[in-house]
């Protein structure tokens, strides 16, 4: 981000941007904003929390203040609440499966699996060469959540996902219960004690080559290479349930910049935010922050990132929709039970669906 700021300041030497951050960034920021203070510019959460910030009057409306002509439609939708623009999209992330190219070659896997059956076959071959086929962390629920939404998204496609969001399609439908069952059936290919493994441990297992594959986002590759600079990594899409469905990815907004409604220097803040939404700013973000571009005309120089952008089917990450926002919480709190044989896949699906029903009921009440 420092390089992005430096690039901006070459064009606008009279505007000084101090980029800071911390592990408790979101909580510190919210406390400051609630107190009526806070920085002029900040990275906002994605929707639907962005909606709440806009309604609470913490964000400066940007409709007439920034040029949106270069933004992709998806990026524009991600920052627009009730027809008003509340942030500038800086980059997105995509989630699929990262894998070690050399381990796949060693196992004799000649093409990336496109279906669940092909992935099972690949796992079997990897297990035969004494490597953990797939690293997953069930303890904190984040990886199991992403695995679920990835595999379920390939079953649903975009239309089906919209139906789920509206409550018209249920997660208890048999083809979606089958997603959870498939994850449980693959347990023999996960690392030992995966129920007690946390995300960081899972990441370390994969990065060091002890595991051949794990679910990963575009932002994770930097971290893998920090742990193991020699890792040769590939990216594949979530495999589809069968050949009639398409492999897919899930994408979310990684970076949205908002301007504080009570900014001390709103014009300067708006200038920087607006610049990020231009091809020059978008290219600086893609080259340096390694987020996927959300500005038309901006290309990624990384072939892996380009592959992510060329996905056959892209479904939003489920927590960027109000009704499916709490699916992750269910996976975190209850998601270990099916793997331990303490809960059937259908029962977990019922809990997941309940989280959607509760959110829909809340939305109806608030209207």
């Amino acid at each position: 981000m420092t390089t992005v700021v430096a690039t901006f300041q070459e064009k606008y030497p009279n505007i000084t941007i101090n980029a800071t951050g911390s592990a408790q960034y979101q909580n510190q920021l919210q406390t400051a904003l609630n107190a009526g203070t806070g920085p002029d510019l900040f990275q906002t959460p994605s929707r639907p929390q962005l909606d709440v910030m806009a309604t609470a009057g913490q964000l400066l409306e940007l409709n007439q203040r920034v040029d949106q002509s270069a933004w992709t439609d998806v990026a524009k939708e991600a920052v627009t609440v009730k027809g008003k623009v509340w942030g500038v999209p800086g980059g997105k992330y995509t989630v699929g499966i990262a894998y070690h190219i050399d381990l796949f070659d060693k196992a004799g896997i000649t093409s990336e699996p496109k279906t669940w059956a092909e992935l099972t076959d690949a796992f079997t071959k990897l297990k035969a060469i004494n490597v953990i086929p797939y690293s997953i962390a069930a303890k904190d629920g984040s990886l199991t959540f992403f695995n679920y939404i990835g595999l379920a998204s390939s079953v649903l496609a975009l239309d089906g996902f919209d139906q789920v969001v509206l409550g018209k399609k249920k997660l208890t439908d048999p083809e979606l219960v089958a997603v959870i069952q498939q994850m449980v059936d693959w347990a023999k290919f996960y690392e030992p004690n995966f129920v007690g493994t946390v995300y960081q441990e899972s990441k370390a297992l994969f990065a060091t080559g002890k595991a051949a594959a794990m679910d990963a986002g575009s932002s994770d590759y930097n971290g893998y290479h920090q742990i193991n600079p020699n890792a040769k990594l590939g990216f594949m899409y979530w495999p589809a349930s069968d050949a009639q469905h398409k492999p897919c990815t899930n994408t979310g907004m990684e970076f949205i910049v908002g301007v504080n409604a009570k900014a001390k220097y709103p014009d300067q803040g708006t200038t920087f935010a607006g610049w990020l939404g231009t091809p020059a700013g978008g290219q600086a973000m893609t080259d340096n922050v390694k987020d996927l571009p959300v500005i038309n005309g901006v290309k990624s120089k990384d072939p892996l990132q380009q592959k992510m952008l060329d996905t056959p089917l892209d479904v939003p990450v489920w927590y960027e929709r109000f009704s499916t926002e709490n699916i992750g919480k269910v996976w975190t709190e209850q998601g270990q039970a099916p793997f331990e044989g303490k809960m059937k896949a259908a029962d977990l699906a019922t809990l997941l669906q309940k989280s959607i029903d509760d959110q829909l009921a809340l939305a109806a009440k608030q209207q």
Partner: protein
Amino acid sequence: MAQQVITAGSRRAGRPAEEPLVWLFGFLSVASFLVLLVSVVISGPPVTWIATGIYALCATGLAVTTARRWPFVTFLLPGLSFYLLFVVFPTIEAFRVSLYQWSGIGEPTDFIGLQNFKDVLTSHTFYNAAWHNLVLFAAIFILQNTVGLALAALLHGRPRLHEVYRAAIFLPGIISLVATGLIWQVIFGSNIGLLTPLLQGLHLDFLVRDWLGDDFLTFWLLVLVQFWQWMGLPMIIYLAGLQNVSEELLAAARIDGANEIQVFRHITFPLLAPAFTVMTGLCFIVMFKVFDIPFVMAGNSGSPDGTTDVLSLVIYRDAFGLGTTVQTSLQQGYAVAIGVVMFVAILAATTVQLVFLRRREVDL
């Protein structure tokens, strides 16, 4: 008669001249403090700074006018002001916030009355977590009154190097709780840990478990780590209590034919009652507020399957989210309601405990 005249004369001299000023500054101090509280709620800087300045002036005036007759007021005011502003007032605000459906973003505006409390008191997650806090308290209570007391009794005998043992046993208590959790998380790590490779290296593979992924084991490992971190305190408190037991009493009992067990049961233990009261109360409060070690070792979710969930983790999840890469909706109003329920429950329980335990304290 002269004495009466002098006494009557003193009365006729009237109250000290500054007393009206004391009343005035007292009233102004209370009023300006209330204005400060209101400004904190409905406004922000610079209004709150101005209100603070006005209160400080009034309080200074009160301190000056009471300096002669009640000098303790000067010493009391700063601490009391701080306590009221940063402890009592936020507690009252918490009660207010718990009556709202509030995500934590912006001001609470959606008043829902006692709905949050109804949701808390009908929540399986709440009772599950509260049960774990209760079991944790019971386990630590038993351990501190057996192991802790035994260690204190051993050290009371002043064996060789007793200062070294005392320091070594107390040392975990001064390590940061987060560091403690991280150390033990590394030791018990499922794949990249210390205990599992050690057991495997010693050909004790049959003992290897998923230490932090087993429904039964994970919780009891947390208890063990919590006690390891805690045991220095009961040991020190009981040691101090033992050192206050009169040697003459013990000698007299022994002369009368009491054996060591009888001496401990009828003399030493009753005289340790004040220490026992303190430790029981502290243990209850700490174990119901426990957060750091479960958060670091077992994660934010109380996993696996909620078997390590405690009330503070439930509050954290609802107030601040999962703390992972997954975003969820925030419910700070609900989280605060859990905190209020916890506050009332802990207050009631410790009050009953203190009343009951104080009765059995023996005065020398």
